[in-house]
């Protein structure tokens, strides 16, 4: 704990007005909070992107091709909290995402 305390910014160092730089959530690895992990099956996935829209943490990785069409490309385990919304929202007949017990 002591070490953590040392890293905190002082009033003189902090940006004023409670400004927080955008995109800093990426550096906050909430992946360690996970008790269940989503497992994505590339072969079953039709890239409907419903999981991508639904994920509250932006942890569904996507890529675009030259026609700017997007495809699911996996899960960002550094930030995924394991809430399971992606697995729940994945269309039943597809079931490309399943939740598994996290092994730690």
């Amino acid at each position, binding site marked *: 704990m002591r070490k953590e305390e040392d890293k905190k910014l002082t009033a003189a160092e902090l940006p004023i007005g409670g400004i927080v730089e*955008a995109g800093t959530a990426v550096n906050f690895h909430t992946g360690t909070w996970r008790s269940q992990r989503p497992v994505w099956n590339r072969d079953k996935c039709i890239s409907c992107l419903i999981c991508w829209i639904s994920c509250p943490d932006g942890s569904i990785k996507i890529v675009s091709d030259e026609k700017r069409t997007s495809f699911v490309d996996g899960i960002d385990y550094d930030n995924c909290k394991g809430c399971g919304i992606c697995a729940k929202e994945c269309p039943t007949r597809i079931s490309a995402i399943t939740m598994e017990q996290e092994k730690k």
Partner: protein
Amino acid sequence: MIKTVYSKGNLVAKTGNEIIAEALRQIEPDVMAAYPITPATEIVQIFSQFVADGIVKSEYVAVESEHSAISATIAASAAGARAITSTSSQGLCLMWEMLYIASGLRLPIILAEVNRAISAPININADHSDTMGARDSGWIQIYSENSQEAYDNMIQIIRIAEEAKLPALVAMDGFITSHCMEVVEIYPDADVKAFVGEYKPERYLLDVRRPYTLGSIDLQDYYFEHRYQLAQAMRDARDIVLDVAEEFKKTFGREYSFYEKYMLDDAEVAIVIIGSTAGNVKAVVKELREKGIKAGLLKIRVYRPFPTEQIAKDLAHVKAIAVMDRSDSCSGAFPPVYSDVVASLYSSGILNPKILSYVYGIGGREFCGEQIVNVYETLGKVASGLEKPSNRIEYINIRIE
């Protein structure tokens, strides 16, 4: 014979509200969002007419309440605009929670305030209860004795707020100043615009190249530091106030500081007061001086940040001081200006002056002439040891029993 101070100045007959609207026209903020309320209504009415007539390019946002007015102003300021609002009394009360948000987010919003009593009972006349209630909300507060000061303060406060990154209000007394037509020297538009300059925020939400989050949660580990920054910014604003006043003097010729000293330097008895009543006191001080009584006045202009050390130094030699509050704290303790003056002297190790607390002028009740003479007479007796200073609040011109 009336004359100008600034070579390019122009003398006009205007009420306080009219001259504030003129200042706003010259400043031409990006956004004004306001909801009219007596006695500040005319400021908004006249300015919105300027917008409608295309005289200013400002965006006027008609809102449905003062809470919305300040919220829209905060949003505009956060987006990067120079944003202004105006209100009075209940309107300022309805803005309450957002006043703290404006200062916490360090947004240099400007508020043209007309001091008025607070309900209940309903009263539309002058006292300082509204702004005194907001005295610790992290807003710079500058008070005006007359229309000229209101105009000059409005021009200066833009610079002060933007440099200090703090919201700021200019106050004048309801009706007494807001509705009184007086001779005011107005400066050319171009000169005011040049003095005020363009607003260049360091960070603003519409800057897509450097996006950031504003107003996020801030718990035990950081909130205290952010609030310290705010308090420190208010302390640091004192230098900014003086710098801007200095430049204002160089440009337009009128001198301003934290407060005005009127025959104070050799005074044995003095009144400390804020706002329009200072003029009434000046007239009495002049008469008393002619009779050989060493009376003086300290008129506070900048109440937030409070000039603690300076005020202590300038009052140290006075034998008896009456601090006049135009708001009662209803606290069982003492009203705000008195508390600040006493704390300033005590913390500076200045314990000699006897300091008396007076509450006057609530809800527009007058304080003038004989009543002021009486206060100086009491001070004289206290100063010479003939009378023990009262240890409680004395109320002026009131029927108690």
